């Protein structure tokens, strides 16, 4: 842990907007307007000194945790909300817009899961924007810190304006995942357990490091339908209709409020804790409905600690990643090696998923 350093975005006192309603596109519109998103991007655009058509905007939604197409989904960011945001940007004259993601540990278990294929499965049309696979455009970059000399996805590196558009859901490694943890998905190596977990470096350190080096200018949270419970970040048999979109120019503040809405002390989340250590404490103004989600099922501290212990051993975490990957769209066939064993383990996973949850 280093002493807190002031960051021009994350260390600023800020406001988090919590918008609720019945029509998700209308609520998204309110979030864009009230949180001052278009004014924020205009300020950054003016200081960039580039033609509007060349000003590169990178949007990082949650895509690669999708295993199946669902409408609505509690697991991945709603593509319609992302495309709505893009349409608003295009109305302002921005044309150089990329939706970015990197491959992930589902590749231990299934084949053919590149970003374009998964984005297509969940409904991204790539009309008026492009979908970029950061794992296919790895460029050397010295992050310093725990990552040191590693790689960065070119589009993420070159973006003039970065947006984290996360999904509201629980996560067994850190209680919940929001706009900060979403950027962990921009780390370009697909074998994340090998490169970003375990001895010498923790995923939350890597996540905060990339956020520090390539700052996110704005964050949105798709909490229209949310995933909770033990495996909320990858599947949820009973999604929660939370009918909310959250927005802020400071993703650190936004993630803090996400924890409050779940009834979890945000400082217990490893990612938020690392952010707190790095950027210090800030004052947050909360505007909107602050009551906790109900019904809502959180992760037990025991699970978080156990997962942290397991990931210290690469092969063990790889084994569990595959054993827990219990469902997938048919277009992505299972990896053949040890297929019979993992099919049995994945069936067991489905049986036990409800065992490690706490009701609020």
């Amino acid at each position, binding site marked *: *842990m*280093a*002493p*807190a350093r002031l960051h021009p975005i994350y260390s600023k006192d800020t406001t988090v907007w919590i918008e609720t309603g019945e029509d998700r596109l209308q609520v998204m519109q309110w979030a864009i307007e009230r949180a001052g998103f278009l004014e924020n991007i205009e300020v950054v655009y003016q200081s960039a000194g580039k033609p509007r058509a060349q000003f590169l905007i990178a949007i990082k939604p949650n895509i690669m945790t999708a295993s199946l197409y669902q409408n609505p989904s509690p697991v991945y960011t709603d593509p319609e909300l992302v495309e709505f945001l893009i349409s608003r940007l295009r109305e302002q004259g921005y044309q150089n817009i990329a939706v970015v993601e990197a491959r992930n540990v589902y590749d231990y278990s299934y084949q053919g899961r590149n970003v374009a294929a998964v984005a297509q499965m969940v409904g991204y049309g790539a009309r008026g924007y492009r979908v970029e696979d950061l794992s296919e455009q790895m460029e050397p970059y010295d992050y310093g810190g725990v990552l040191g000399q590693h790689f960065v996805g070119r589009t993420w590196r070159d973006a003039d304006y970065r947006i984290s558009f996360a999904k509201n859901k629980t996560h067994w490694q850190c*209680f919940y995942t929001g706009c900060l943890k979403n950027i962990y998905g921009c780390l370009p190596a697909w074998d994340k357990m090998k490169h970003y977990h375990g001895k010498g470096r923790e995923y939350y350190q890597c996540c905060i490091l990339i956020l520090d080096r390539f700052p996110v200018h704005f964050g949105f949270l798709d909490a229209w339908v949310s995933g909770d419970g033990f495996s909320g970040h990858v599947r949820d048999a009973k999604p929660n209709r939370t009918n909310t979109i959250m927005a802020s120019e400071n993703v650190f503040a936004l993630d*803090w409020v996400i*924890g*409050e809405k779940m*009834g979890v*002390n*945000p*400082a*217990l*989340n*490893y990612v938020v*804790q690392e952010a*707190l*250590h790095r950027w*210090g*404490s*800030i004052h*947050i103004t*909360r505007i909107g409905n*602050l009551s*906790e989600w109900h019904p809502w099922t959180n992760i037990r*501290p*025991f699970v*978080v*600690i156990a997962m942290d212990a397991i990931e210290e051993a690469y092969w063990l975490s790889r084994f569990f990643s595959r054993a827990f990957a219990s469902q997938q769209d048919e277009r992505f066939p299972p990896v053949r090696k040890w297929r019979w064993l993992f099919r049995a383990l994945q069936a067991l996973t489905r049986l036990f998923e409800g065992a490690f949850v706490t009701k609020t």
Partner: protein
Amino acid sequence: MEFPMKVYGLNVIELFLTDMLTALGWGLILFAVVAGVYPNPFFPLGFLEGLLVAGTGVAGGLLLLGSGGIRHNRPVVDVAGWLLPLVGALWLVEGLLAGRAGSIIAGMAMLALAALSVFLRRQALQARFSPRFFSLRQFETMIQVADTMIEADETPALHPIEVAIHVDHFLHQIDSPLRTDIKRVLFVVEWLLPLLILRPIAFSNLGSNERRRAVEKVIGAGGLFRDVARGLKLLASAGYYGSPGGMAQVGYRPFEQRPRSQGVDQTPKHYPDPHPDGGG
């Protein structure tokens, strides 16, 4: 619910450890009662066995007391942390001598749980501080040294933890034989300094007034302790006044920010090489 944003607040490992110690405390008390009432599976009950059962109950009680606040009640947790493995080892020995499986299993379980709680306490500290140069114990000593040396009514510019982090990172960067001496000083402060005020407990476990008394004792002392006093002053000052916040508090402004530095040519002066031919 709004949660206060605290940089050094509770972390998830401490939260889990608190719950685990509570459960362990109740478990040990319950076990002691059961073993006292039904001793047969464990040993033939005699005086020494009775003491062992009582010790187990006391360890449980201390764990319960300590888990009420693992930071504030740290000395209690420390004592329980020593007592639990001792009691576990005695149960194991008793079981081996008496040839009773129940006692052996109980002893092994207590030793395993004691090891787990030590591991978790270390992990919790690691998660809070991640020191680069100091050990976890030395880092805690450094925090208490900073807290003692910068103690004042007004709010200090830096939290004692930040002072300790500054010192830790500074010492991590430099390469000097002084580093070994500083570790030795912290060892002396942690384990020997409290003895000067007749407190046989670690410096980090003392309250702020007692820590102050111990430090005041060495300020006027001679020999080894005079060096200790100098070391403490040096460490606290370097950590506090070496930071921008500490500098600002005493009115120090870096040269580049002073009005008289503005417009001054600060480019380095270049002198001709006095030995252009290599000095031969």
